[in-house]
């Protein structure tokens, strides 16, 4: 099986995000960078597919030079090789440009299944997987919590509001992973050593022949709206405090 996992390097979930004074973006000097948590589920699933069915796992990432660390992390988990698309022309890439770059890379290699995260926790956009599937002309299965390979197709479980769908799709296809799919492994020490020698092909945008003109622009970045300061409810007895909360919810907030 030829399995591809797309990974993005993002700020750690604990990172403080500070908006630049002129609203042109965020201050990214102090940030600790990690693999997008949803991509960890994707890489783990890719490795499990390979362990069960044989084949090769290729990691593809679009991002600046530091994104190489994230590719190495995936290789240390057990992936075989990587492709790193790195080009300053892609600094303002939106979902469409990123998906175009991934599609251009992937078109040039054999693939049966492509795993993505359901969304990247920096832009929180959740678009790249489906756009990639569209650009490759193959089906997509998003927000998957269970995946089973049958030989020529995959069967997945996909929770929706108030129900769970079981869907079958012909290969090749794009699957986007969410929590519940698996428990991602940690990279072992020997894994980390081996990863250093695994091949990573570095490409620029020109080599892919794609347009780098973004369709969307974040015209302004703003801090989140401030919440009015809350009230701590005082009282001697739990019953008294509870009654006061109920009263406020009814009379002040008018939500019950």
């Amino acid at each position, binding site marked *: 099986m030829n399995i591809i996992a797309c990974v993005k390097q993002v*700020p750690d*979930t604990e990172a403080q995000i500070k908006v630049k004074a002129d609203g042109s973006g*965020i201050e990214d000097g102090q940030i600790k960078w990690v693999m997008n*948590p949803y991509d960890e589920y994707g890489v783990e699933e890719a490795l499990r597919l390979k362990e069960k069915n044989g084949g090769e796992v290729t990691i593809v990432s679009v991002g600046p030079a530091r994104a190489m660390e994230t590719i190495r992390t995936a290789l240390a988990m057990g992936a075989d090789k990587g492709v790193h698309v790195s080009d300053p022309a892609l600094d303002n890439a939106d979902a469409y440009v990123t*998906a175009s770059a991934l599609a251009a890379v992937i078109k040039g290699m054999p693939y049966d299944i492509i795993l993505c995260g359901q*969304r990247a*926790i*920096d832009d*929180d*956009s*959740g*678009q*790249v997987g*489906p*756009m*990639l599937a*569209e650009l490759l002309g193959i*089906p*997509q*299965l*998003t927000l998957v919590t269970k995946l089973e390979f049958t030989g020529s197709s995959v069967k997945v479980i996909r*929770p929706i*509001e*108030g*129900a*769970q*769908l*079981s*869907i*079958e*799709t*012909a290969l090749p296809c794009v699957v986007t992973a969410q*929590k*519940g799919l698996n428990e991602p492994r940690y990279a072992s020490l020997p894994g980390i050593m081996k990863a250093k020698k695994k091949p990573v092909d570095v490409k620029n945008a020109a080599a892919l022949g794609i347009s780098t003109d*973004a*369709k*969307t*622009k*974040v*015209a302004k*970045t*703003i*801090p*989140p*709206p401030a*919440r009015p300061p*809350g*009230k*701590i*409810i005082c009282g001697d007895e*739990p019953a008294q405090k*509870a*009654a006061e*909360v*109920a*009263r406020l*919810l009814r009379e002040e*907030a008018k*939500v*019950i």
Partner: protein
Amino acid sequence: MAKGVWIIAEQRDGALRKISFELASAARKLADQLGDEVGAILLGSGVENLAAQLGKYGVDKVFVGDSPALEPYITEAHAAAAAKIIKENSPAIVLLGASVQGKDLAARLAGKLATGLATDCTDVKIADGKLVAIRPMYAGKCFGEVVTSASPQMASLRPNVFAMAENAKAAAVTKFDPAIDAASIKSKVLEVQKDTSGKVDLTEANVIVAGGRGMKGPEGFQILEELAEVLKGCVGASRAAVDAGWKLQKDQVGQTGKVVSPNLYIACGISGAIQHLAGMSSSKYIVAINKDAEAPIFTKADYGVVDDLFKVVPELTSACKKLVG
């Protein structure tokens, strides 16, 4: 010239979902500012009769694509049908719901139309005749004002955030041939397993009572169920409670769970880790019950109670029962 504000209505099992009316109401406001019409795409099998309901919330024209191939929802079929009617009419703006189905369709469709999309928006406005979509980024640690240069400008709107506003319009129905090529459909729904609890999904709930590690075990959640029952709400959980096996993954709120926007979120025995706040900070009112006065959840709470939740929650249930009857 691209003209008109369109929505893609969402229906399931022959009924429109609430998000469709939220979309229609939001689209009406934008269209009134632009002096344009609101169009709605309605896809499914035997769904024409739903069109009138959209009119009630301000839709002028409904484009109905009716075909057995559109039921149940399959991405490729719905994206193909929506792309066809959009290309024929060139609306300036297309809005979808940021529901599971809406997000799946929106991104595929934006890819097909080679345009831009702003996901999970909490506000939309018009500036210089263009859509400006306002959306949380970095799990709500900042917001972005997104402008799409390509056409149509697409956005998906977070459920439960946009108010439904009645505003009756004609909802003139135009049927179109979705022209779905059966050979292009590679996916098949094998089974639909419905949740039999009768509760709405957390993303659509008006009231959520959530519990964390402080609930001590699965039995602890019983008192939250009782409070939720009185408030006609749902029970959610922190990741700690889900990973401990006390609640299901579908109940998890936060960065790796669901993003929710209820009118009221009551956090019980939840410390308020940044990844939890990521999922619930757009709630309209937040109540925190925690015995640790320093717990970060209190920085987000409108009303905080520092006390033992096992004492406070049952009292809150009876106090609410008295008020709501």
